[in-house]
């Protein structure tokens, strides 16, 4: 007899998705993640648009990864036109992307994932018992948003980070305000690690994972031009097509990615595991203390990795601000751009993993071709794999338990479905 388990609408995730499982007797016949976010065709409608406003449109792919989309878009354009930005711009970008990580991880770890482990439908319902923690989490999230606000101009779809630099340089007092907010929230970030390290993280999805993360250079971070892979290889982002092998899958939803025939996992867990030698300070100490719990074969430990990144990113924001202030802030203006017929690929670690933007331009600097690969699209095949493994193990537990467990898996990846620009078929059995 065939039985279907359908989670029609995943909640506490960004965007719209569901999980569909078909079970025959005690055997899993099929698992599908349905992403039924309507397609928006960014790569099509951006064609013909002149370079100067391309990031303004493309960052609207996603709200919560807005700075990552913006920066990936900007980097692709700067590479195409061979633009070199100043060290101050590099530092401000680093601050912005670490601020985004704080905002997004605070939201996800405390407000979206934690309710699962404590048995609540949402963070607001947790307030009666955990008022202090929820309020502290909101303050941490706010500290991240301050970075968005002050550097980008607003929380979502900030516009002050542009091709060639920042038109308006933040004021010293505003940077100090961010610094203070980060200092005040340090304890909350560390609490996240403590909470997820003490929680019994289920291992029903235990299976091999192929991990990928951008090589941030010397210090742990989220911007890079090379991809580190768990098989020990290091490849250029320009080879992203071979690294993702996006394929349209019939009877499925998002284009599926694979590397050497296996699904791929990107996100906090791959970053922390592949780049742990680049961690330092408190985050490094916490990694050492809990590294036994960060299991490359258990995607559910992603939340703990996010918590470690929270600690790192809070510290890094403070570090970047100190460096900016000790260098002295300078009004630099934007680097002059000379468009040409060319192409470029920009990659950034969004909170949920590697994000690629690839553009080609004509001689006037108008887009002739665009391709975007988002982390949730890359993760999709891996989430399905995890769900298949979990269903196999949990099949005896009855429908309700199974549904909750599958939602737990999907949510551990912090999927951002509005991001998944590539969607194919939603098939309801």
């Amino acid at each position, binding site marked *: 007899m065939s039985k279907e388990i359908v989670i029609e609408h995943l909640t506490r995730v960004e965007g719209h998705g569901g999980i569909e499982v078909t079970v025959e007797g005690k055997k899993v016949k099929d698992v599908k993640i349905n992403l039924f976010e309507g*397609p928006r065709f960014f790569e099509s409608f951006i064609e013909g648009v002149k370079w100067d406003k391309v990031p303004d449109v493309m960052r609207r792919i996603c709200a919560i990864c807005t700075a990552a989309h913006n920066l990936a878009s900007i980097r692709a354009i700067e590479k195409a036109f061979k633009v070199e930005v100043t060290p101050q711009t590099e530092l401000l970008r680093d601050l912005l992307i670490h601020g985004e990580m704080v905002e997004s991880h605070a939201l996800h770890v405390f407000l979206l994932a934690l309710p699962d482990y404590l048995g609540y439908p949402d963070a607001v319902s947790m307030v009666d018992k955990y008022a202090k923690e929820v309020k502290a989490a909101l303050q941490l999230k706010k500290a991240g948003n301050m970075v968005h606000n002050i550097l980008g101009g607003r929380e979502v779809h900030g*516009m002050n980070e542009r091709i060639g630099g920042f038109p308006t340089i933040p004021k010293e007092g505003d940077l100090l305000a961010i610094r203070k907010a980060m200092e005040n929230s340090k304890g909350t970030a560390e609490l996240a690690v403590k909470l997820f390290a003490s929680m019994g993280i289920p291992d029903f999805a235990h299976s091999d994972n192929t991990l990928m993360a951008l090589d941030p250079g010397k210090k742990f971070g989220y911007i890079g031009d090379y991809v580190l892979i768990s098989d020990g290889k290091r490849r250029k982002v320009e080879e992203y097509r071979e690294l993702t092998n996006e394929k349209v899958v019939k009877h499925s939803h998002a284009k599926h990615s694979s590397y050497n025939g296996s699904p791929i996992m990107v996100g906090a867990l791959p970053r922390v595991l592949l780049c742990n030698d680049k961690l330092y300070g408190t985050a490094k100490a916490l990694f050492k203390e809990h590294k036994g719990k960060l299991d490359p074969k258990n995607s559910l430990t992603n939340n703990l990795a996010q918590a470690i990144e929270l600690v790192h990113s809070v510290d890094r924001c403070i570090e970047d601000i100190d460096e900016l202030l000790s260098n002295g802030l300078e009004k630099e203006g934007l680097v002059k751009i000379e468009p040409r017929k060319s192409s470029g690929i920009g990659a950034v670690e969004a909170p949920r993993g590697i994000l690629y933007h690839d553009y080609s331009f004509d001689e006037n600097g108008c887009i002739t071709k665009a391709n975007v690969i988002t982390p949730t699209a890359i993760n999709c095949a891996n989430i399905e794999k995890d769900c298949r493994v979990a269903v196999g193990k949990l099949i005896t537990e009855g429908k309700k338990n199974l549904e909750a467990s599958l939602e737990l898996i999907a949510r551990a990846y912090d999927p951002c479905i509005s991001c998944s*620009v590539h969607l194919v078929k939603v098939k309801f059995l």
Partner: protein
Amino acid sequence: MTKPKIGVYSLTGCAGDQLMILNLEDDLLALLGNVEIVAFQEASSVKKDTEVDIALVEGSVSTKTDLERLKDIRKKSKMLIAIGDCAIGGCVQAMRNQETTLKEKMKKVYDKEEDYFEVLEPYGLSKYVNVDLELPGCPIETTEIRQVFLSLLHGDIPEIKDYPVCVECKLNEYQCLLVDKGMPCLGPIIAAGCNARCPGLGIDCVGCRGPIKDETNAAEELRTLKEKGYDERYIENRLRFFGANFEGIAKLSKMLKEKTSGKGGK
């Protein structure tokens, strides 16, 4: 007093307007304590299939599923508020409406022509249902959504700005980027409410709050920018980022279509 029942719903978009509600941070818990949330997909697992007093809907109608959900939400809500540009004019994904067919878009992005998703050309909610209030922005402003909540809790109708960004620029005494600096600023035709945020940073308005409804003099904006040296297609693209479904801009596009257009910018 019983707390008003609120549903926050999301159609096709970036989920940024829901996120802006969560970004109320300092006021979030106090605010949510005064209402009963019956649906808020991004923040809560609670999903009750029930009538609501106020439905806040973000996202554009881009698939048949979106449309069915919207009609259902309308039926179950006393008041329906469109939050954000997607829900008002379709936002950026509507940019090529009437220019490129859905088939062409499918072919380009998915290399297939079949209509996998039962896709509709993206539009705002008011094309299909009666909308009681439209709160513009990409994304909406936290100050505005806070004001909407407070007004409604007090039984008032929230005030939505119907004058251009230029007014806020003048109030802030910012230098005019269009007249003084020759930058391609869309401030004259775009709805205010952002406190002229971009011009304040030295960035020309890209139009993310959408054109002022029924009062968009797109032809004059085009004439002014052409005078500053920008070519027609460049200006038209910019007007269409957030305004393709607005009457004034659609008309202008139609007019330009009959002429030959160049490429590139200045």
